C-alpha cells in the first residue's frame, strides 16, 4: 500500500466510493426535486423550476387564492406579546407610572392593593397590566368603568403604569404550599378536557406571557372573569387561550379554583 495515492483516479477505492456516493446523490436529488414533485397537484409544484424551488423549501404562498379572511365582529386584542417585553423598565418609567397611577388609587388602592373587589395590581406581571390596558383602550376588553379611564393614555403611559405596578410589592405573603392542597382542577387540570394545570401559565410552576399572577385576587373578581371567559362574554384572550380552558370547567371547578387563588 505504500506509494498508493489516496486521491487518485487510479485508486479504485477512491473512484468507487466517491463515484458511488455521487451517483446516489444525483439519483436521489433527481427523484426528490423533479420526479416526486410531479405527482403533486399544487400549482407551485408544476414546472421544473417551480418543482425544484418548492422541493428545496423556498418559502411560498401555498394558499394564495383561498377565500379572504373573515374579519372579527368585535375588536380583538392587538397586543403582540413577547416574553421579554417590559422586562427591564427604567426608573424614570416606573416613576412616571407612579404619578399616572394616582388616578387608579380609588379602586386599585394606594399601593396597588385593593379594598374593593377590584384586582390587586401590586406585583402583577408588567406585560399583563400593559396588555389589559391596551385591550380596554381598543375595546377588546369591555368595561364601563375602565373604558373612560384609559381614553387619554399613550402607549408609553401604559408601559409606565405596567412598570410601576410590577415594581410594587405583592400583597400575598403566604408562601405557596405547592400543589398539594390545591383543588384537582388547579393542580392537575383535566387533560382530556384540555384544561392544563393553572400553575403552568399563572406563575407557580412557570408563567406564560400575558397570563396574570392570580394569588390573592378578590374572589368575586376571579369568579366573574372565569364565568365571562366560559360564556364568551370576555374575549380579549389571544386566540381563545383562556376561553378554551374556562368553557371546559364545571361551575364547581370554577368555584374551587377561584376560592383557591383568592385564599393564597
Amino acid at each position, binding site marked *: 500500500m505504500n506509494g498508493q495515492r489516496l486521491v487518485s483516479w487510479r485508486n479504485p477505492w477512491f473512484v468507487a466510493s466517491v463515484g458511488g456516493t455521487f451517483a446516489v446523490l444525483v439519483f*436521489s436529488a433527481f*427523484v426528490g426535486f423533479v*420526479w*416526486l414533485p*410531479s*405527482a*403533486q*397537484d*399544487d400549482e*407551485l409544484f408544476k414546472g421544473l423550476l417551480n418543482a425544484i424551488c*418548492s*422541493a428545496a*423549501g*423556498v*418559502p*411560498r*404562498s*401555498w*394558499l394564495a387564492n*383561498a*377565500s379572504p*379572511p*373573515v*374579519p*372579527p*365582529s368585535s375588536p*380583538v*386584542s*392587538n397586543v*403582540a*406579546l*413577547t416574553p421579554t417585553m417590559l422586562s427591564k423598565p427604567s426608573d424614570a418609567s416606573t416613576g412616571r407610572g407612579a404619578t399616572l397611577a394616582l388616578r387608579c388609587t380609588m379602586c386599585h388602592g394606594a399601593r396597588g392593593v385593593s379594598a374593593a373587589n377590584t384586582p390587586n395590581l401590586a406585583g402583577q406581571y408588567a406585560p399583563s397590566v400593559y396588555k389589559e390596558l391596551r385591550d380596554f383602550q381598543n375595546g377588546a376588553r369591555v368595561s364601563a368603568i375602565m373604558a373612560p379611564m384609559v381614553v387619554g393614555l399613550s402607549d408609553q403611559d401604559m408601559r409606565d403604569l405596567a412598570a410601576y405596578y410590577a415594581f410594587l410589592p405583592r400583597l400575598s405573603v403566604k408562601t405557596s404550599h405547592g400543589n398539594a392542597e390545591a383543588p384537582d382542577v388547579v393542580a392537575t*387540570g*383535566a*387533560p*382530556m378536557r*384540555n*384544561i*392544563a*394545570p393553572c*400553575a*403552568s*401559565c399563572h406563575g407557580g*410552576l*412557570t408563567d*406564560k406571557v400575558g397570563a396574570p399572577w392570580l394569588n390573592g385576587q378578590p374572589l368575586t373578581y376571579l369568579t366573574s372573569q372565569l364565568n365571562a371567559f366560559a*360564556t*364568551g362574554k370576555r*374575549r380579549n384572550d*389571544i*386566540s*381563545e*387561550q383562556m376561553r*378554551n*380552558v374556562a*368553557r*371546559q370547567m364545571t361551575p364547581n371547578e370554577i368555584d374551587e379554583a377561584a376560592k383557591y387563588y383568592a385564599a393564597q
Partner: protein
Amino acid sequence: MSSSSAYDPHESAKVAARIEQRWALVVVGIVAVLVAMVIFTGLHWAMMPPSRVETIDPTTLHVSGEFVESNLGSTVEQDGSVTVRLVAQQYSFTPQCIVVPAKTPIIFRATSADVVHGMLITDTNINSMLEPGYISTFKTRFDKPGNHLMPCHEFCGLGHEAMWANVKVVDQDTFFKMAAKTRRLSCVNP
C-alpha cells in the same frame, strides 16, 4: 471452508470474498427495494410529508392575516374542498374541537403562536409539527364519519400533558348544512 486435502489459503480467501460480494449485492438489492417503495408510494398515492414551506410572524397571528380568531376553523372553498385553519399555543389548539366532512378533500393550515408543538389525529396518518414562524400546510381526506383525538405530540412546556383537542368527522350533508349557517365552522360549544 474447502474440504480438499491440499488447503490453499489464497483459494479459500477468494471463496470467502466471493460469498461476501454476493451478500453485498443482496444488500444493494434490499436498499434499492426500500427506496423503490418510497418512490412508488410518492408517485402513485402522491404521498408527501408536510413540506410546503411558508413563513409567518408568530407574534401577530391574532392581529391580522388568515390566523385571526374569527377566521379559524373549517371553511368551504369554492371548489368544494374544505380548508381547516388552526393555531397551536401553550396549551391548546384553537379551535379546540374541529369539525370536518367525510370523503372531501381537506387542506390543513396550522401554525404555532409560541413554542414548537405537534399534532396528530388518532387513527389517521395526519401528523405534523407546528412551529413558530412557519405555516404547516397539508392535504388529507377522511374516509368515514367518527370522532378522533388530536393530542399535541411535542413537548411544549409544563401543560403539555393537557393539550388535547377533538376532531369530529361528520357526513357531507350534515357538514354542508352547518356550513350554510356560518362561514367558519368548529364544534366548540359557545
